[in-house]
């Protein structure tokens, strides 16, 4: 092992039933560096971390830790801790009702000769520890009195105090604001100076460039590469994560159509926000317009849509729908204003598996009418048949339980659900995920058709190409904020550059 290397993972492979989660992945961590582990959803970041901390068993490959003879294979987080690997998770795993000092030392308290806790020594040691990391807290106070950021730092302090060589920070900044993130970085830098190797898992690009020395990128369970931070500008990082070679990108001519400038406004949002998910944003959407939301995973695409729809109640700002001030505090309000949302997680939020195709289709329509104005059975069947035909939903009968349908057809049925309510504004969150290419094209065509009928559509997709084909305009999100809009000729380069943002974009 090289002198300054604390951790090497070589040829790590692991399969989940039917999926190769990790394929021959290498990872190297050096002493005193902050090393970002990046990748889109499903890239294998969490799986790799779990192999390291003993939560998952890997099938092939070896892990070596500085100062430990031979290879290391952990079977629990306790195992990992004993070889000097500590983890701090997104959710703070501490007890808010205990003092800071106790949270730092519980389970390993200094004891007196009478087998009781030596509170005095514990307080003193805790105080020294937080002072060393420059965390400004009173260790005798209960943890709940401090902000989430401080709590996160205490968790890090606890992890780092346990003879830690490798510190894994798994999305520690997800629920912190900018000032808090800044403080967290100070602690990270302090530990770095003390020689701890830090693995930083995050999807916030800015934070990676603010604090990291090196980046390892994974995609679809394979290693894309390890880069010093200076060699990997933002655009290249985005390209690496998304699997596009930036230089080879052929610009795809949008098959969509020009944005109408003269039609009335459907949605006017001013300063809408939801704490912790989406920062205040302004957004206008005209009638008959298809607006795309683009950005990396976790950039706030779905969250923006949810805050308009009332699924996450907006805490600030105003919203006008069709020119009128609207107050939306729950999805039903939005539905009554003529909105529809096709959620991205259709298993959890969309289909009701045991109900029939017919019942799934008329669900939103019935909800809008209210409990007491039941749709007649004949009417229900008529509507269901119409959409099954219109969208070519492949089902044995309209009474077939929807869970027996393929993913693409389920998706169409949910789309039918919202179309049946005749919405003026339809939000489609990843409507084409996991469905075959033929159905994808049909859905894209349908979106353009709907917009030609004067409906406004918000389209969220991870596939830039399909957005280029369908959208008039795109809003770009990064790190939970809307950072810009793209109009005119949309090209893949422009979109990717906007997603990457930061210094590269401004040059």
């Amino acid at each position, binding site marked *: 092992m090289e002198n300054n290397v604390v951790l090497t993972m070589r040829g790590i492979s692991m399969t989940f039933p039917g999926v190769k989660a990790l394929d021959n992945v290498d990872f190297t961590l050096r002493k005193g560096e902050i090393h970002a582990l990046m990748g889109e959803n499903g890239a294998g970041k969490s799986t790799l971390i779990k192999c390291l901390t003993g939560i998952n068993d890997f099938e092939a490959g070896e892990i070596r830790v500085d100062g430990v003879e031979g290879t290391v294979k952990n079977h629990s*987080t*306790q195992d990992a801790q004993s070889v000097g690997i500590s983890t701090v998770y997104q959710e*703070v*795993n*501490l*007890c*808010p*009702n*205990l003092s800071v000092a*106790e*949270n730092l030392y*519980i*389970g*390993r*308290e200094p004891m007196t000769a009478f*087998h*009781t*806790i030596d*509170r005095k020594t514990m307080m003193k040691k805790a105080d020294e520890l937080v002072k060393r990391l420059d965390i*400004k*807290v*009173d260790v005798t*106070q*209960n943890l*709940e*009195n*401090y*902000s989430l950021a*401080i709590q996160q730092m205490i968790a890090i302090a*606890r992890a780092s105090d346990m003879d830690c060589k490798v510190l894994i920070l798994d999305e520690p900044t997800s629920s912190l604001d900018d000032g808090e993130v800044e403080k967290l970085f100070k602690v990270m830098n302090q530990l770095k100076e003390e020689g701890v190797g830090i693995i930083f898992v995050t999807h916030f690009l800015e934070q990676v460039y603010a604090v990291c020395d090196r980046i390892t990128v994974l995609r679809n369970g394979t290693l894309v590469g390890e880069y010093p931070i200076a060699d990997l500008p933002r655009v290249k990082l985005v390209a690496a994560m998304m699997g596009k070679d930036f230089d080879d990108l052929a610009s795809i001519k949008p098959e969509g159509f020009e944005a109408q400038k003269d039609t009335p406004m459907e949605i006017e949002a001013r300063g809408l926000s939801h704490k912790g998910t989406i920062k205040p944003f302004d957004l206008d959407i005209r009638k008959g317009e298809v607006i795309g939301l683009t950005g990396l995973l976790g950039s706030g695409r779905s969250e923006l849509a949810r805050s308009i729809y009332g699924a996450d109640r907006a805490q600030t700002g105003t919203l006008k729908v069709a020119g009128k001030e609207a107050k939306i505090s729950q999805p039903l309000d939005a539905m009554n204003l003529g909105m529809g949302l096709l959620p991205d997680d259709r298993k959890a939020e969309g289909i009701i598996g045991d109900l029939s195709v017919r019942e799934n289709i008329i669900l939103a329509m019935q909800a809008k009418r209210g409990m007491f104005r039941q749709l007649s059975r004949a009417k229900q069947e008529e509507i269901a048949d119409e959409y099954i035909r219109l969208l070519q939903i492949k089902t044995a009968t309209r009474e077939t339980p929807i869970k027996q349908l393929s993913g693409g057809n389920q998706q169409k049925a949910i789309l039918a659900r919202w179309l049946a309510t005749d919405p003026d504004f339809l939000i489609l969150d990843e409507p084409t995920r996991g469905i075959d290419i033929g159905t994808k094209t049909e859905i894209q065509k349908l979106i353009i058709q709907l917009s030609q009928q004067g409906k406004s559509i918000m389209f969220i997709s991870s596939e830039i190409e399909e957005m280029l084909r369908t959208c008039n305009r795109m809003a770009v999100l990064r790190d939970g904020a809307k950072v810009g809009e793209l109009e005119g000729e949309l090209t893949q380069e422009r979109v990717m550059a906007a997603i990457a943002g930061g210094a590269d974009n401004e040059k």
Partner: protein
Amino acid sequence: MKPANAVKGRKQMNGNTLLLIITIVLFVILYAGGCIVYGSKGFTNLQTFLNILISNAGLICVACGMTCVMLTGGIDISVGSLVALDCMLLAYGMGKWHMSAPVMCLIVLAVGLIFGLVQGFCVGYLEIQPFIVSMAGMFFARGMTAVISTDQLSITQDTNAAFYSWANWRLNLPFGGVLNRKGVLIMPYIRVGVIISLLVLIVIFLVLRYTKFGRSLYAVGGSEQSAAMMGLNVKKTKMKAYILSSFLCSIGGICYCLNTQAASVSQATGLEMSAIASAVIGGTLLTGGVGNVIGTLFGVLINGTIASIVQFNGKLASSWPNILTAALLCFFIVLQSVFAFLKEKKK
């Protein structure tokens, strides 16, 4: 940053201590009120206060155990029935089996340990709802009491001289004496139950504050998942809490029996609810993680003072203590919610 944080912290810690202070102040007000209104009837005598301790010695022990269980976020509603079973065992064992008093006390304590072990195993390792487990325990203990005897038993000089002498033993205090109508100086006294219960209180206070086990109770109540992640044995901690509760309940049962010197199937009905009420009034949260036995002691004392006042009045119906306790519970629960709300808002 530092001063802002420090001030914020100090203010909020007062939130929890403030609850305790309110409890204590409320007790003082109640007691002072009793002294003013019923001073002429002898409420001001130190003995009145000591009588509250004497008649509630058993409840103090039981409530200490209850506090420990509630700290983990659990509940133990079997304690009232277990006290009845303890009393019945003592009375029947000494009366019918002619066992000696110390042996019967040890048996009662052993029964408490086993009882708690079973309940704790069910809650900790089988992860059954504490309410259900202890409800089963409640029915079982009450049922077993009836199995032993459905008679009204009393412990007299003839039943067991040793136990009788313990029950009637007095420790006169060297101060606070009053002259009775004949002009004889009567010294205030406490009974053995008071000494036992105060010892229990002190020990549990120290255990909760200075031992790994005690702090684990708080940690488990604060967040079970976090406690597990920090390497604490959550299941074992929970089991120990229920063992402790049942064991303290058995000590409480002995104190209770020393006070009543009687046993019957319907004895100590609703005692579990008094214990829970005392803990809650004393600032223990039902959700776990917050509370201590000092608060619980004052919770018991408040209940006792109310009962005393009603007794001194002589004309009020015996249902009044219940109604007042209900009002107090509402008051404290609302207060706790308000504090929790303010704390949340400050963040």
